[in-house]
């Protein structure tokens, strides 16, 4: 039975959803602004007979995740931007070895130590690998409490289905939202498909070895990478997610995700009252980016206005999708600055008027 409607902090929501989705192993290190998540799980895991370890670093934590994944568990870690940088080695290894895991990134201002305010400057890091090698990780971008819960379930399912690390990308604000949430029912671990590749002792079978090093001279690594790419192509074909609002007949469509999308949504509501026909295209999977859907939309509307909480990362995927089919405008705020809906309204108005007062036109 799904839960009753609960009012819950965003970080706690992710933790509760993970536990309900069958996660029994969490390894993480404190970093603002996501400490509420490990704090929540340090108690909640005990309730369900799971394991919680506060590792000695984000590096240690991601490697504990690797070990628990290899052993067959549903496992999660979480961090924020600088800590996610530390995890890249482990993520690359897990992608190479095809290991499922869920990684939560509650982004903060950067680069370097930055600040603890919500920012969205890790889009490149999340969608363009972050670690070394030819690999991809699905990236999910929730835009509210209910989505934090629902997409956590999706993350675990995608991770297991494709044997890949999956990232849930939030930010400091998402971590703190207090919104009503209805949680899906607890997943029965017995119902999950059995994994025939895990390491649990070779009694009764051949010994297994899992590794990502392929030194052979017969093109083994080349073949392996082709296989991985085939997997990523399947994910791209089948797992794109996005949401559109008021895009029919719009004179401008805002493209934004996560917290930025929530602000844009409020701005759009206000502008609609003024008679400006503004719509919203909200990617939910940042990888695979919903390129075909946005391309199709850009044939029908004259202007695309990209709004990001950084100086321009997703906009590159928008350019790839839209090309010259519509005018592309960009407005971004780095360093954890969160604008008001009114300020974004200014941007949208400026795009419609073409006066360049807020943001800028992208030369494609």
């Amino acid at each position, binding site marked *: 039975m799904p839960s009753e409607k609960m009012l819950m902090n965003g970080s706690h929501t992710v933790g509760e959803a993970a536990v309900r989705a069958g996660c029994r*192993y969490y*390894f993480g290190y404190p970093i603002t602004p996501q400490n509420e998540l490990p704090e929540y799980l340090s108690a909640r895991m005990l309730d369900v007979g799971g*394991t919680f*370890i506060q*590792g*000695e*670093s984000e*590096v*240690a*934590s991601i*490697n*504990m*995740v*690797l*070990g*628990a*994944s*290899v*052993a*067959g*568990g549903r*496992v999660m870690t979480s961090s924020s931007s600088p800590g996610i940088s530390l995890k890249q*080695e*482990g993520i690359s*290894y897990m992608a190479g*070895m095809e290991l499922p895991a869920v990684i939560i990134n509650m982004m903060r201002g950067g680069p370097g130590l930055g600040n603890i305010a919500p920012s969205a400057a890790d889009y490149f890091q999340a969608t363009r690998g972050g670690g070394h090698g030819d690999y991809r990780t699905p990236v999910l971008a929730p835009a509210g409490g209910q989505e934090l819960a629902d997409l956590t379930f999706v993350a675990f399912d995608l991770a297991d289905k494709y044997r890949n690390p999956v990232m849930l990308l939030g930010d400091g604000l998402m971590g703190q939202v207090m919104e009503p949430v209805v949680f899906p029912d607890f997943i029965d671990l017995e119902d999950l498909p059995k994994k025939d590749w895990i*390491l*649990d*002792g*070779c*009694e*009764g079978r051949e*010994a*297994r*070895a*899992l*590794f*990502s*090093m392929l030194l052979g001279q017969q093109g083994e690594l080349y073949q392996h990478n082709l296989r991985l790419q085939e997997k990523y192509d399947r994910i791209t074909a089948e797992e794109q997610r996005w949401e559109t609002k008021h895009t029919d007949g719009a004179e401008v469509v805002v493209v934004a995700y996560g917290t930025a999308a929530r602000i844009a949504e409020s701005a759009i509501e206000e502008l609609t009252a003024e008679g400006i026909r503004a719509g919203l295209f909200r990617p939910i999977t940042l990888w695979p980016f919903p390129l075909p859907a946005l391309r199709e939309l850009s044939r029908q509307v004259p202007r695309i206005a990209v709004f990001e909480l950084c100086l321009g990362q997703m906009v590159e995927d928008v350019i790839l999708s839209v090309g010259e089919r519509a005018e592309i405008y960009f407005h971004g705020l780095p360093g954890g600055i969160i604008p008001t809906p009114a300020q974004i309204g200014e941007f949208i108005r400026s795009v419609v008027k073409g006066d360049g007062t807020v943001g800028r036109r992208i030369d494609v």
Partner: protein
Amino acid sequence: MSEQIEYTKIFSRPESLKENPTHYCPGCGHSVAHRLVAECLDEMGLRGKTIGVPPVGCAVLAYNYFNFDMVEAPHGRALAVATGIKRVHPDKFVLTYQGDGDLAAIGTAETIHAANRGERISAIFINNAIYGMTGGQMAPTTVLGQNATTAPGGRDPRLHGRPIDISRMLAVSDGVVFVERCALSSIKQIRKAKKAIKKAFQCQLDDLGFSLVELLSPCPTNWKLTPKAAWDWVNEEMVKTYPLGVIKDATGYEDKK
């Protein structure tokens, strides 16, 4: 006169060791260490429930030689990976097999904390005082005056710092119940090493805590010595920096002589 004499085989390849010939250099300690680990697992009936984590180093391909479940770990992270495995399968037997760079340079934090948490994991630490796989650079355990490609002219305390004794450092922690240092450079020491490994494994089986066996290991290739001279160097020189013997024993086991 042809009497049929009956023979029993008293020494052969353990089941936990595959038939694949190893790639290790002539006189390398890894082969003996692999065999000892395999013999102990066989004799204690552990092969079917063992999950091992090899290092990044000369033994990176250990899964081609050991006949039990193994998973590669990023360099130095073996004890964190082992922690994840053991927490999912507390009833299985988890060991790491690591070199000096893996365990005591890049992996120092993971080593200290897994040990300090008292993880029920057994670590086999192969100390050859050099970085083998990458061609002879200085290791954290390279001894003073010893030559290395990144310490030309020999290790100098001012330029390169002193060698680290990670085993003694680990012994300070209450989570660590057994640490012994043996060598692979004489028959007597090899036999002692096997006993130490068994004892370390028993610690895990008895849920006592973290155990580690350090094995001083000859590296003829990177020391630029013959195998025999490499054995002598361990026995005469290396033990001055890394004395052999039990470093910590909080097991309460009574040793059979």
